[in-house]
């Protein structure tokens, strides 16, 4: 694209360009053709959440992926009517890519801890983009497999890993 210097300076600041920069760095989207990435950057929405508001809720299939642009969010799990905080996510985290690929009920809730600004992409939009770029599916799957592998590798090497009950349930990467 050729833009005159005057136009270019304006374009550099626009939200679409910022979104594009962000998506480029997300492993889940790595290797996608630039046209698809541009379309995704154009389709994803920027939303703000106030402290306490839920980005997603346990048990629901909201079919959304989030990128935290700024702010912090707590991952919560409710068991037997009690809510436990599992961990806190900081800015520049990508969450929920797997929800874009198929129906999945959330095992956790994610609640804004501070004011949160995030990019939101829905399964509906993502699958419409997939329809247009059938070649990208293998790349998405490749990214997903790598993520799962990397995740369990990290999990297995973590210091706290040792309890027998945990070992019995290892093997996410074996699914």
């Amino acid at each position, binding site marked *: *694209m050729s833009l005159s210097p*005057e*136009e270019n300076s*304006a374009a550099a*600041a626009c939200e*679409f360009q910022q979104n594009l920069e962000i998506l480029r760095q997300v492993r889940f989207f790595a290797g996608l053709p630039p046209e698809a990435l541009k*379309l995704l950057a154009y389709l994803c929405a920027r*939303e703000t959440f106030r402290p306490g508001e839920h980005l997603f809720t346990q048990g629901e299939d909201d079919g959304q992926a989030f990128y935290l642009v700024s702010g912090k969010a707590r991952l919560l799990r409710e068991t037997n009517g009690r809510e436990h905080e599992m961990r806190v996510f900081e800015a520049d985290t990508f969450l929920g890519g797997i929800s874009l690929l198929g129906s999945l009920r959330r095992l956790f809730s994610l609640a804004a801890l501070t004011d949160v600004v995030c990019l939101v992409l829905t399964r509906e939009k993502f699958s419409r983009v997939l329809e247009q770029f059938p070649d990208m599916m293998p790349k998405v799957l490749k990214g997903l497999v790598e993520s799962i592998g990397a995740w369990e590798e990290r999990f297995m090497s973590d210091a706290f890993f040792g309890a027998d009950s945990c070992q019995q349930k290892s093997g996410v990467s074996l699914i």
Partner: protein
Amino acid sequence: MRASDIPVAKRSLFSWVFAYNLHLQGILLAVIIITVFARVLPLEMQKRVVNEAIKLRDVDLLMLYCGIYLVSVLVASGLKYLINILQTVIGQRALAEMRNALYHHLLTLPLSFFRKTQPGLVVASLVNELVAAGDFAGEALAVPITSLLTLLVFAAYLTWLNPILAAVSLSIYPVVLLIIPLLQKKANQANKKRVDATRQYSDIIVEAVSGIHEIQGNGSYRIENQRHDQVVENLRKIRVVWNLLRFGIKTGNNFFTNLSPFLVFILGGYLTIHGRLELGALVAFLSAQEKLYDPWKELIEFYQSYQDAIVRYRRTMEYFDAAPEYQLAPLDRAPYHLHGGLEVQNMSFATEGGIPLLQGITLSLKPGEHLALVGFSGSGKSTLALCVGQLYRYTGGHVLIDGREVAEMTKTDIINNVGFVSQSPFIFGGTIERNLLYGCEARNQAAGAHATPPLPTLDQIIEVLQQTGIFVDVLRFGLNALLSPQRDRELMDVLVRVRANFQRDFGGPLADSVEFFNAQNFLHHSSIAENLIFGTAIDPAFETPNLPHTPYFLEFMERAQLTRPLLNLGAQLARQMVDILGNLPPQDIFFRESPIQPEELDTYKQLVQRLGKQPLHELPAGDREKLLILGLRFTPGRHKTVALPGLLEKRVMAGRALFKAAVERDFPEALAFYQASAYIHSQTILNNILFGKSKSSSFQAEERINQSIVQVLIEEDLLEKIIEIGMKFDVGSKGDRLSGGQRQKVAIARAFLKNPEILIMDEATSALDNKSQARIQRLLEARFKGRTTVIAVLHRLDVVKNFDQIAVMKAGKIVELGPYEELMDRKGTFYELVTGRK
């Protein structure tokens, strides 16, 4: 027996000819007889002109005969037109009756019929194939009688003129009558094949269109093209043969009928030369004989169209010759009012192919008890529910409601007492209200004269809307509606007052969610055009879409130094959007946040190609206008592919003041500028109350605004009014302007409004969020238990606890049946399902 008592698919083609048109056919017959005589008269006149008037050189006689000739030609033409009119009326009426009867029949056919029937076939049958039959019904009497009578009268006239000549020239026709049926038989066979091949062809098209996701997803263009091309090739071959045969019949007929003047020339010429025939008589004979040709041709064409119609008609009716599984309404009694006690005894269901889907189902529910059906998908939960609801006809055992066999009840009995919410409910085009009342209206119409509860009141509807959780959505539809200045003036005045209260109470807290209209601020969530005008057009020339063609506005833009930056902006937007969307299909989801509409994409694609070659100010006027349109549409808060240039923002703000001053001076009546004390006709109710626009369409932003708005509406007692407006919201074809959850809520509300004795819910809440699911579950427990028998097919187990009975299904059988605690204690299949362990 009246024709309408025979099942439509078994009626003969001829039954339609007279069924609804007896007196019209009578009139037609009378007209025909007069016409035939009006046709012979000119011939006689022709003879007399030659033989008497010319021979005797009698001008008066000539005038008289010519006068009679003229009158009879006029009468004949007029009557011919009258026959055509009658024919059309009869034919179209028969076609309409045929379509109605077939459609009414179609809707009552069992679901199994539709599983093996492609929509394309039904469309083709009703739209195309029956047309030939309808046309035939119009012709059935008129054409053969007119033609035959004409033929006979002419033949008699010929015989009267000269018996020998007549015998010779008529001798051709029996030969033709022998040959044509032989050809026609072959043509009929080809036509049957053609009907079948056309059907197959429409199936293929429908399948491809409805499966386009799979085709594009798999890139299976070649496979589909091959399939299509083969069918088209087959159809082509059949059509060639069929058409050749049809034309063969026409040509053969032409040939033989043209032979007959040849015979007359030879014989008649010979006779005249030898003085045994007057010249006038020969002339008359030749003209009369020529006139034989027309009715004969009509007769042959009629024969062909009869054959075509009968083939199409039979082929179509054969296809739809299935019987409805249930009688629609009881004949000799009022519809049952049931209490909802359900007894299923050793019930089984098998497909037509004999594959058993349900076996040995036995269970029993007292009126008001609730049953949950759970199990893996494919275990037969839905099938069981559908059998109880009479949508499938069980093939063995019994289903009894209040001791009455479901299979023997009429449809009216069932719809009077049973409410049904299916897994993927169908929403009809039209308003929310229509969809909500659909079940109630159907029930009341079916009951007819028998006393039924009246349609629900607005209060009752609102209650159900709240129960099912779609209240908020309907409220939003209402808030997003535009009011009509003619009808809603009073409401507008009230809303302006509400606006002031809203500003006072919520203006502060909502400042970061709402962009309020303020003459001093640039509005990021309004378009550049709206920012400049900052008002509503009264003169159409100032309406936003017309601005770029309004010279006054264009001059103003030059003065305000806006043209150049807007052209730049437009060019930038066009380039960006074409770059992102250039090769995409026109799906709404891609274009929702684009200033270019799907149908404009091609225009802008071509424009972008020209952009690189010329500086903007040298572009042709048409191109500049297109760029200007984009620039004026630009809404910084929505169209995120381009940032708002700071310079432009300043000039727009300066321009707004300039424009207001200019218009107030030059066209004081053309615009109504936004002011806090006046309703804005071009904006929604919501924006009018806000006196601004929401900054985000996200759920949580809407939620924040909603809460405040509802509070104000309650205070002002306007909630019902807005709901009423929201119920007029048009849901789009198949309800595609509603989300999956909204569609399901509408379907649930539709069933609740019927207030049935038995409610069947087939995974009715699967598309709802947790809160809505829980709300509906609570409602079932609190309001329906003990009053309405509920059968719920469930995919989630966290809500089954409070059901009276739970049936766990596996491979078409109930493996466990009982209340929650009992099944959990048993530690069997249900326990495994709940705990997820084996």
